[in-house]
């Protein structure tokens, strides 16, 4: 059982803060929250909204429908009414506008003069607080539910401001209580929820936290939506550990800087979104051939080019896997959940050090910016321990130096050449973007070219994508296999459960590693399924193409793509799944 609430208005009216107060308050009460921000790439005037899904159990997406809509203006009604359930309520800013509804909808309009209340009891900028008070009344919260949070957030502006905000909340509460009998019922809070410690964070926060736990100490980046929040989190976390957040002049510099730090032995990363990631194409090659570890986080947004900065998409898989001229070794991870973000970024650092190559972590706007309730037990600081790979100690370097000298690009059986660091006596060496000898000297002779290339290819052979990054749930030999990657896990999971509840045999294969590709696992799953539906948030079907490339072409493989900039709704995947099920059934009947 869940409850969904949304507040909408013009950008600049405090919609985000209102949403966040609502979400965090309910989170603290013991609910599991998923909060989704809808915003635009402009500063003032566009429509913005904040949706909060409230449940007694954990889940991974915003929900298709809406129980209650708080509308600051007509546009908020127009753009969101289609989500409202029958009998749902629209709490509107009475006096500010006269709401219009299509004739045939079953909706309960509730007018509360929120702006007037704000003016009367505080100031007009507190209209959002009147909305909070009114919402509290309608969902059965106490009028003081938000008090703690208000003190936290506005305390720095002085006691007066806090008091005014509280007053406005209460006035909103009173007004709403009187004007309607409509009431939403929030789900029960299971006792165990209250015992559990939980955090409220989004993917970007989890990336930042995981990076710090992984020992990352320098982050060089350039601001870009929706990745900048990673920097904000890191600015809070890193200086504590002497670390540095460096705002670079552009993304080329940012990525080169991350490479430079890693060369010097300090774990470093860069975070960006598509347009910045394209500018790092060159540096991928540098890290590849110089065999310098580097971690790049790409919080995907809708492309191409500047595209839609505030909309989500899974559009950068190809760029992550195939870009940069020539041929380099790399690893591409695609966390599916906030917890994945926390662990995968740590894995990324370990993998980068182990394989001495770039590791790209692909998240997206939906995962990066949607705050969720997560059990603290699932944010385990000790699950993944720091493994710096073949990094030589001062003593080892000295020994090597004494026995013939250190070779940065020594040909080894594993393909991995132990790394000395600058500053280590005896380990003087050159990291280089040219093809080179074992010593790191520029060289174009076929012998070195071939042996170094083979070495670089060989080093990836121990990487097993199936060790992690592959989740399979549901039936073993399903009628329908749903395959997804990254942030769509929540919707696909709900689809699987919905179909299973109808008695369908369904499975869900979810990938969090895209390169090297988990071929065997995908093949097994596909070949044991009646039909297959590949679900992804893009137009080209990038995962589907990867499956074709690595696994094969299948007549029973279908696709479900969404590229509007919005995350999937469960219903969209469900109806496509039903189509596929129907089709495959009719095929069977004929055949």
């Amino acid at each position, binding site marked *: 059982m869940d409850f969904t609430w949304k507040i909408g208005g013009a950008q600049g009216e405090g919609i985000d803060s209102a949403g966040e107060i609502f979400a965090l308050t309910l989170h603290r009460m013991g609910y599991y929250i998923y909060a989704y921000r809808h915003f635009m790439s402009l500063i003032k005037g566009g429509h913005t909204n904040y949706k909060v899904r409230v449940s007694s159990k954990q889940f991974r997406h915003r929900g298709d429908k809406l129980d209650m809509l708080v509308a600051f203006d007509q546009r908020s009604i127009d753009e969101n009414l289609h989500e409202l359930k029958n009998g749902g309520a629209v709490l509107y800013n009475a006096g500010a506008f006269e709401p219009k509804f299509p004739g045939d909808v079953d909706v309960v309009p509730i007018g509360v003069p929120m702006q007037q209340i704000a003016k009367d009891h505080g100031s007009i900028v507190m209209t959002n607080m009147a909305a909070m008070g009114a919402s509290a009344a309608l969902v059965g919260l106490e009028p003081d539910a938000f008090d703690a949070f208000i003190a936290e957030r506005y305390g720095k502006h002085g006691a007066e401001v806090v008091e005014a905000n509280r007053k406005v909340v209460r006035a909103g509460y009173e007004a709403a209580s009187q004007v309607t009998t409509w009431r939403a019922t929030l789900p029960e809070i299971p006792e165990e929820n209250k015992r559990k410690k939980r955090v409220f964070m989004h993917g970007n926060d989890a990336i930042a936290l995981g990076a710090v736990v992984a020992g990352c100490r320098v982050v060089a980046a350039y601001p870009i939506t929706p990745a900048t929040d990673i920097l904000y989190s890191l600015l809070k976390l890193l200086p504590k550990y002497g670390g540095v957040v460096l705002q670079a002049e552009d993304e080329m510099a940012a990525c*080169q800087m991350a490479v*430079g730090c890693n060369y010097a032995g300090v774990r470093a990363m860069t975070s960006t979104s598509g347009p910045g990631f394209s500018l790092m194409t060159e540096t991928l090659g540098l890290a590849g051939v110089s065999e310098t570890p580097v971690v790049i986080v790409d919080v995907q947004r809708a492309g191409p080019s500047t595209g839609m900065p505030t909309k989500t998409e899974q559009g950068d898989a190809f760029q992550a896997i195939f870009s940069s001229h020539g041929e380099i070794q790399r690893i591409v991870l695609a966390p599916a959940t906030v917890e994945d973000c926390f662990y995968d970024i740590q894995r990324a650092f370990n993998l980068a050090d182990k394989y001495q190559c770039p590791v790209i972590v692909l998240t997206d706007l939906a995962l990066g910016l949607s705050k969720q309730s997560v059990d603290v037990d699932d944010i385990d600081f000790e699950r993944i321990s720091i493994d710096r790979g073949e990094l030589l100690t001062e003593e080892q370097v000295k020994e090597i130096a004494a026995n013939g000298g250190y070779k940065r690009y020594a040909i080894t059986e594993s393909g991995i050449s132990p790394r000395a660091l600058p500053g280590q006596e005896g380990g003087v060496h050159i990291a280089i973007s040219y093809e080179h000898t074992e010593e790191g000297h520029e060289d174009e002779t076929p012998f070195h070219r071939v042996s170094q290339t083979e070495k670089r290819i060989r080093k990836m052979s121990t990487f097993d994508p199936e060790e992690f990054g592959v989740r399979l749930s549901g039936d073993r030999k399903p009628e329908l296999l749903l395959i997804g990657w990254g942030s769509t896990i929540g919707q696909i999971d709900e689809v699987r459960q919905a179909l299973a509840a109808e008695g369908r045999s369904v499975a869900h294969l979810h990938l969090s590693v895209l390169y090297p590709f988990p071929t065997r696992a995908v093949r097994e799953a596909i070949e044991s399924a009646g039909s297959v539906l590949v679900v992804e948030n893009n137009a080209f079907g990038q995962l589907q193409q990867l499956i074709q490339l690595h696994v094969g072409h299948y007549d029973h493989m279908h696709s479900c793509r969404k590229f509007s900039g919005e995350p999937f709704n469960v219903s969209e995947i469900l109806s496509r799944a039903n189509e596929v099920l129907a089709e495959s059934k009719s095929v069977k009947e004929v055949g």
Partner: protein
Amino acid sequence: MSTVTVKDYRANAQASTWCPGCGDFAVVAAMQRALVNLGLKPHQVVAVTGIGCSGKFNYYLGANAFNSMHGRSLPVAQAIKIANRDLVVIAAGGDGDGYGIGVGHFIHACRRNVDITYVVMDNHIYGLTTGQTSPTSRKGFKTKTTPYGAAEHPIRPLPLALASGCGFVAQGFSGDVKHLQSLFEAAIQHKGFALVNVLSPCVTFNKEQTYDWWRENLVNLDEREDYDPADRSAAYKVVNELNSLVTGIIYREERSDYQDELPNYDPQPLIYQDLSRPIQDRDELLAAFM
């Protein structure tokens, strides 16, 4: 510190592929002597280079090195210093590398003021790619890519550095290794970002800016008693008046560097710090998200 000699550098250096007479030889020699004079051993130094003839500087220097891509020495160099402030970091490259494709990084390195030294081997030509116009080639200069003469006005490195807030601006000449060495020493000792633009003849592709030509035209400001390198506007004026045909320390200013400005940035290099501390702070770290 046990003594270090130029031999220690030469031990790691490769055989040169520069043309006989190339100005860049003097740059390497001057740098080796400067480092030795400052008591720095090869393993304490990192040279970060771009791509160009000049980009091969690090092969012959004999210290640690990162040979990055064309135009990208500076971001890498700054990062290395931030990661390990005990290292002496020298970025080096050509005029095309530094003032052409890489000029954005240069401007920002000047204002960021990380404590590294930047050596540009300025031969007014693209040497490695066998003779195209460079950003410092004079207007009208004929090369393979400008057979009718370069259409653009040249970049003027010294005014550019001055305008970008660079705290140490010097110019040297490959024909005077001793002076060059002194400039390198001063640059390395300078706290913050230091530019040494070296007029370094390309004997193969630039038949105009030759050793003789430079010798005839250059004025050494270090020898001018009345010249005070502490006044930015005055420096700009002199450089303008003398059409950049100067050597010496053009401008120098003592001030805090980037690292001084960082919150809680330790004197102990980042690289030597303990990575496991966040685990102990788990509760506190998570509390921020509750």
